[in-house]
């Protein structure tokens, strides 16, 4: 009888008998028709929409061929789909086991990025951030993939533990988070760094941390947030100031710091319910000089093109992706798989929220892209890797017996 070590317990693995069926080898049952298809289909839809949006943003004539950037995005999409498929093949437990070495590697790369005397041909600042490594024909952004590595490491750490149910037990996860967040913030890339925190909270929530503790932490951070303002870089402070001005109706900064936000809002509003036509939208986007129109602000471009309906569809697509991931977490009993998927959902949801919020003028301009839709190889491929992982978890529902991840029969909700 084959046995398996589960934690410190040796468990016998029994064949599962299905009524009227052949006994199948244990651990080999796959569920190809699973709930993660929601996420996959949502991802495909959003990616295709993204390609179109990039084309609208990039070229004014709009007849005939796609722009070069759109074609590149299609290539990235193909690579991403491939990467996602590759990642779904092995059991996700593999990634769990690899997560700590990968985490160490991530930290190493992030530190490497920050070393001042690294030559320019290797690490070239893009938009002022030392976030990319030049591999000749393409650039690699460690912090993108780092999001996945981090979530995997965190999920692997928390999968069987209980002491995060105590307040002090929250410290190790915080440290696991703080290291990459700190390093990424120093690049500086506050936008990407910010996304780690919602993922942490989502995973902690899913791992059983007490709600009381989490609420206390959130409240403390909110109270302490204004104290962080002086620590921000000038342009970050300026963006927050600009947002406050917008809310107050002060239009004095409209031509400089608030320009991006104002133009995005103008284009979104001009889209109306159903959007303007294709040619008109290309012209409006071009001549209103929307900055970052094919990556950070592509949402504004798409709403301009297809109106509130289109915007709602994009939001719906993202919601669908998150729902797919959470449903996967609901249907899986493996704690690592569950936490992994929850963490990835947190990342995608937070990123989408920040990007769309900044397009709508509700949040200050923070440099994060819209998952699946914005232009960017690292972003798109990483998001598809995340989708692949979710699919991989949904593909393999673990059979019992499985050691309980946590138990809390005392009612503490």
């Amino acid at each position, binding site marked *: 009888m084959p046995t398996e070590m*589960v934690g410190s*317990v040796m468990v016998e693995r029994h064949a599962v008998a299905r009524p009227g069926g052949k006994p199948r080898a244990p651990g080999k049952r796959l569920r190809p028709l699973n709930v993660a298809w929601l996420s996959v289909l949502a991802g495909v839809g959003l990616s295709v929409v993204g390609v179109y949006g990039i084309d609208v*943003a990039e070229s004014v004539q709009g007849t005939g061929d796609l722009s070069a*950037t759109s074609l590149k995005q299609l290539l990235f999409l193909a690579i991403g789909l491939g990467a996602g498929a590759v990642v779904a093949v092995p059991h996700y437990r593999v990634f769990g086991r690899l997560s700590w070495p990968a985490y160490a590697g991530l930290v190493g790369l992030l530190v490497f990025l920050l070393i001042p005397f690294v030559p320019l041909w290797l690490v*070239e*600042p*893009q*938009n*002022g951030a030392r976030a*990319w490594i030049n591999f000749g024909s393409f*650039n690699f952004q460690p912090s993108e993939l780092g999001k996945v590595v981090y979530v995997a490491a965190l999920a692997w750490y928390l999968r069987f533990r209980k002491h995060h149910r105590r307040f002090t037990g929250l410290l190790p996860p915080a440290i696991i988070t703080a290291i990459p967040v700190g390093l990424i913030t120093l690049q500086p890339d506050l936008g990407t760094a910010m996304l780690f925190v919602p993922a942490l909270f*989502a995973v902690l*929530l*899913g791992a059983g941390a007490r709600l009381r503790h989490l609420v206390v932490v959130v409240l403390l951070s909110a109270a302490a947030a204004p104290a962080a303002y002086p620590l921000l*870089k*000038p*342009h970050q402070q300026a963006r927050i100031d600009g947002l406050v001005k917008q809310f107050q109706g002060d239009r004095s900064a409209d031509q400089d710091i608030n320009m991006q936000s104002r133009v995005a*809002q*103008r284009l*979104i*509003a*001009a*889209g*109306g319910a159903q959007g303007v036509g294709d*040619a008109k939208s290309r*012209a*409006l986007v071009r*001549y*209103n*000089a929307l*900055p*970052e129109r*094919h990556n950070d602000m592509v949402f504004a471009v798409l*709403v301009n093109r297809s109106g*509130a309906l289109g*915007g*709602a569809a994009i*939001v719906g697509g993202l*919601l669908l992706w*998150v*729902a797919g991931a*959470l449903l996967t*977490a609901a249907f899986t009993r493996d704690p690592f798989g569950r936490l992994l998927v929850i963490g990835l*959902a947190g990342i995608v*949801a*937070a990123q*989408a929220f920040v990007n*769309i919020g900044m397009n*709508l003028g*509700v949040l200050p301009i923070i440099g994060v892209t819209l998952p699946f839709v914005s*232009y960017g190889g690292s972003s798109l491929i990483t998001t598809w890797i995340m989708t692949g992982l979710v699919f991989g978890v949904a593909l393999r529902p673990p059979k*019992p*017996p499985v*050691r*309980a991840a*946590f*138990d*809390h*029969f005392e009612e503490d*909700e």
Partner: protein
Amino acid sequence: MARIQTDRTPGVAVLHRRLVLLLALLVGPLALLLGPLLRLTTARAASARAEAEAKLVRRTWLPTARGRILDRKGRVLAQDRPSYDIAIDYRVLTGEWIDDRARRFARSLNRAQWAEWSPDQRQALVALVRPAYEAHWRSAWHELARLCGQSVDELDGRRRAIVDSVRARREAVLGARREVELAALRERGAQPTPEQLALVEKRIGGPISEEQSSHAVVERAPDSVALACLALEGGETMLEPLGGTSQDAVRLGGGEASRSNRADPADTIPGLAVRDAGDRDYPLDTVRVRLERSTLPSPARQPGAVDLSVDGVGAHVLGWMRSRVFAEDVGARAAALERLPGLAAEARVRTGDGVIDRGEYREGDRVGHVGVEGAMEATLRGLRGVRSTSVDTGEVRTIEARVGADVRLTLDAALQGRVQAIMSPDLGLAVTQVWHGAPNDLMPVGTALNGAAVVLDIDSGELLALVSTPALSRRALRDQPEMVFDDTLNLPLMNRPTERVYPPGSIVKPLILSWAAQRGAYRPGQTIDCTGHLLPEHADRLRCWIYKRGGGTHTAQLGHELTGPEGIMASCNIFFFTMGRRLGPAGIVEGYRVFGVGESWDLGAGVESRGLLGLASDERAAGVSMGDAIQMGIGQGPVAWTPLHAADAYATLARHGTRVRPSLIAGRRGADPAPVPLPAWAVDEAMRGLALAVNDSRGTGHHLVIDGKREPVFNAPGVSIWGKTGTAAARRAVATPDGEGPEGPVVVDMDHSWFVVLVGREGDRPRYAVSVVMEYAGSGGKVSGPIINQIVHALIAEGYL
């Protein structure tokens, strides 16, 4: 011991609750964003769409011209002489444009990091992108030189001259600002510290207005050049500042993320503005008038004619243009558009981001200042054309320019010129002469006299001439403005016929007579005894002029008590003191009021004075006492009016009390005032009196005494004249340099000389009212009489009589 978890364990239910909570926490905020999305796309959709689409339209202004001012016979009095300046923005002239644009582009590549970089790092990137802008600037300059038909060196020379002069001006302005600041510092006491001095330098160091505006590099360019430049104005060229530069620049510039910002559209010729520089031409400003001198009083009489050159014909009425636009002008235009909805509808054009006024004031525009140019500014001002090019569809929409409307005056420019020549010192009537009877130390013979003349058509109320002397020379205004503006004694800027008030003196007497009849204070057949002085016990006040001269009375002179016409003929003060006393304050104030004192008529030529009446305008009796009323019977006391009021009142009398509102601009006449109810017999008596005054040898306006001999004042053939002299006691003019200090020396101390006539063809009723006043000139008959005589000759010469 590990727990085996199955579906039935409560932990799973808790997990699912948590997952639901997670779902809410992750999905909720995203879903909530639909709120702002909907709000933006519904509430703000229309205005945002308009704002966004406005960016798709490139607008060019097409020049226009100002309307003309014509006289009653269609002669052009004012017109535009179009020409254009080709102007370039100052920062393009200095080349700072290159650095501005390079810097702006460099910053757009690296927005996030720009704030962090040191000045050296920024400068490095700017230096990389700068060459493209410099090359464009040079080629644009060459193109401009080619278009203007000049060599690049010539244009460059002009450019350097402009830059030098602006720099010099900057030094001057900064010096003045510095002085002001240092004076303020010194006032506070101690020596200024270096920090304070540095702060002062920083405060004054802002740009001066010349550094922020465009300057003409080619003035008065020919039409072909202007049109060629206009075609290029607003055109765009795409620059590729990063094209062909090193990999460093490409990577610094932002790699993939910013590729969409690679190209930078710049003006084809940066900073180009084609400005309307047209001059306003006044073709009849200077005229030569040929005047016959055989009809002048004998000392000035000569056989044959004289050619007089007259400067500034109608300048007071026409006004002029100024080249600085003030906020008040913008406000005045807004008010005018309220009053003229037709013009507003034509001027206003709906564009993507609002409504624009095609006649709005833009840099380099001129504004009409005073006179008709000022008062009719909104009508005369043309509307620019607008060419809107849609950058996405290429559609061009043009609204053609519309030239400003012409304004037609009722004046006759030839008559105006003649009258002005008549009142020119060169002819000899508007200078102190021996025959005036009162040369004195203050005004020796030959002193120029200032005054006003009004010629009014009785039936229509149209003004045929409105002359003010001293004349206003446009050349002096342009070349020596301080001489014009600072002459507080002669006040050459004042348009006397409408702006300056004088006590009427004796010329009101026919009006008083007819009004007194209306009020029952004078009955048909009544006579008044001229006793020399009104109050029997006081021989030193309220005296008749004949008594003042030699102790006589009119009753003695005529042999009987005076009838109404005789009172007018002899200009007897006692007669009219009596009228004043009988009418009383309320009565006499009302009499002046009904004849127009206190009214103005919005002629559309600038400032008009309403005249002065009494001491408290809101009361019925205007605060006038009985003593005042008596004085007002002879046109003295608290009453003053303009020469226009005088002509208008006489025209009313000639119309038997019907009032017709005077007008200066054709087609612009408001409602006529209420008619004056005058009994017909009284009007007849008044007219008879006026006829006697100039036609009877006992009349004050009949003759001059020169070298002991009598000469008739009027010698024009084929006309009937009714007229009245007036010698109005005036306050003497005193020079007070301090304004409020002790009185300085007396400058003039003489009476004003009035003469008003009604004139028509012989046997016909009166057709024209002419009023003349000569300031501080003395006797009405002696000074103004010959002038009016010449004006009658002028009316004949111009075909009116």
